[in-house]
């Protein structure tokens, strides 16, 4: 029997492919139930006008009980958005990806939330302590123990 995780992901994928992604989000790759890639851009008048970012979702077998590991991809082609919640290695400090995750959320809900996080940005700047964090950051952002206080704004 398929695990809850793959059943749920299959359902989400079906919805995405049949109904399309939310505006500004495109599915780039979902060949398996471990890693999905999306492109994301923020439409409208925002600080990120014209910029396209790449989002990576990594799921474990506990999804959706456990949150997906979500980060912006930083490679030759893509950069992480400059945002007070986004470290330059693409890690995102957002409470819904951590302690406020709920299994009701879905991949496209996370995409929309991150879009909204970018859209509401007032100042393009890196989080405090970016360099320090990036230097020692784990590969998987879920291993980071973000604390969502005044410095890392709650999303």
């Amino acid at each position, binding site marked *: *029997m398929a695990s*809850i995780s793959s*059943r*749920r992901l299959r*359902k*989400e994928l079906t*919805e995405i492919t049949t*109904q399309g992604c*939310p*505006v*500004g989000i495109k599915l780039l790759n979902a060949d398996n139930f471990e890693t999905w890639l999306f492109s994301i851009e923020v439409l409208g008048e925002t600080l990120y006008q014209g910029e396209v970012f790449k989002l990576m979702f990594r799921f474990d077998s*506990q999804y*959706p*009980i*456990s*949150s997906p590991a979500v980060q912006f991809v930083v490679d030759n082609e893509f950069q992480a958005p400059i945002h*007070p919640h986004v470290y330059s290695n693409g890690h995102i400090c957002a*409470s*819904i990806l*951590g*302690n*406020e*995750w*709920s*299994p*009701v*959320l*879905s991949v*496209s*809900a996370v995409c*929309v*939330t991150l*879009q*909204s996080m970018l859209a*509401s*940005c*007032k*100042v393009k700047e890196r989080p405090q302590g970016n360099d320090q964090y990036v230097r*020692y*950051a*784990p590969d998987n952002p*879920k*291993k*980071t*123990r*973000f*604390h*969502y*206080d*005044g*410095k890392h*704004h*709650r*999303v």
Partner: protein
Amino acid sequence: MSSRDPLWFCHECHTEMTPLMMPDPICANCQGSFVEKMEDPNDDPRQFQRPVHRAYEDEYPSGMDNFLHGLHGFLGIRQGPAGRGSSSAQRSSAASRSSGGAPARGGFRFELNGGPSAGQRAFILGGPNTLGRPSEQVNHNVLPMSEFLRPRDDLGQPHNGSDITGPLMAQYLMAMLGHGPSMRGPDPFGELFNLGSTEGGDGGGRWGDYVFNQEALDHIISQLMENSNSGRPVPATDEIIEKLPKELLEDKSPLLEKDCAVCKETFKLETEDPDDQVVVSLPCKHPFHQGCILPWLKSSGTCPVCRYALIAQPQYHGSAASPGPASGGSSNNRPQSPPSNNPSRSRSSGSRREGSIGSDLSNTVFGGGGSSPSRVDRNSRSNRRSSGPTSRSPPFFPGGWHE
């Protein structure tokens, strides 16, 4: 503070801290990997300090003598309170060198003027326990000044006098500089002056409980916050789970038109697995497949849809200590009332097209949910909640971190 995670001890910089996990624990202060969890009071890693230092007794750099003697007089250590008029050193409070072996309550404070980066730096040696360590541990403190200055002979007897010898002072300073004896720099005095520089040497302005600059103090404060409000969701107890109403789906059940919000499947009568016909309804009336909701409740005792708390959940800012069992929580920690009572604070998010994300949840996602007023609000430009818990349930973090 009673139930916080045990602190770890870094053998490299002699700091007590909560380590960074990536995935192996490393010191939050110096990023060293030689760290040890302080769980067993009978095997306190801090005890290793003294032998280590004694081993290096004769290895302080040449040229230290003058410096140390100078510093010795500078500190006015033996001269009793109130120092010597011209010395800029002063005893900040009763630096009692108590005969019982307890660390001094007060501390030495001295100030250095005109370092390379200008300005004045105050150093406090010894002094009260600033990390809120439980009092029974204080006697095993990391080398308080007074303790350090009481060298013991081989029989373990304290020396009669309170001589501070050059080597002793060297050890103390080396330790204070955060380098450990094996890594000392060629110019200790230069090191001393560089402590506060923003380049943040290995010491990072911090040694043990003692800090030398604002940055290090901030660091400690944020560590304390992390420890005190570890806002991990509290799982529902088995007892709570057992009492939840279970329902076997029947013909014409009103549930048959609804979805389980966890797997997003509609409740159905004909299922491969008969367990999929068992529906659990939470007190907030949200229904789920038993197999979907139980794993969640075991990691977080809340409704996935509306976050109704089946068991007291930590408040943001961890309204102090640990969230107890529901019966013992403070009034703040009572399960919140079902969402229908919440004022409508949902924010329109136009592009959201997924109907199953109820507005209940979006309240929470965007910060409308039951958070307490902020206590720490250093930078509140755009955040609705200014502070919060740090992490969630065990599967998210590597071992050793949790109980």
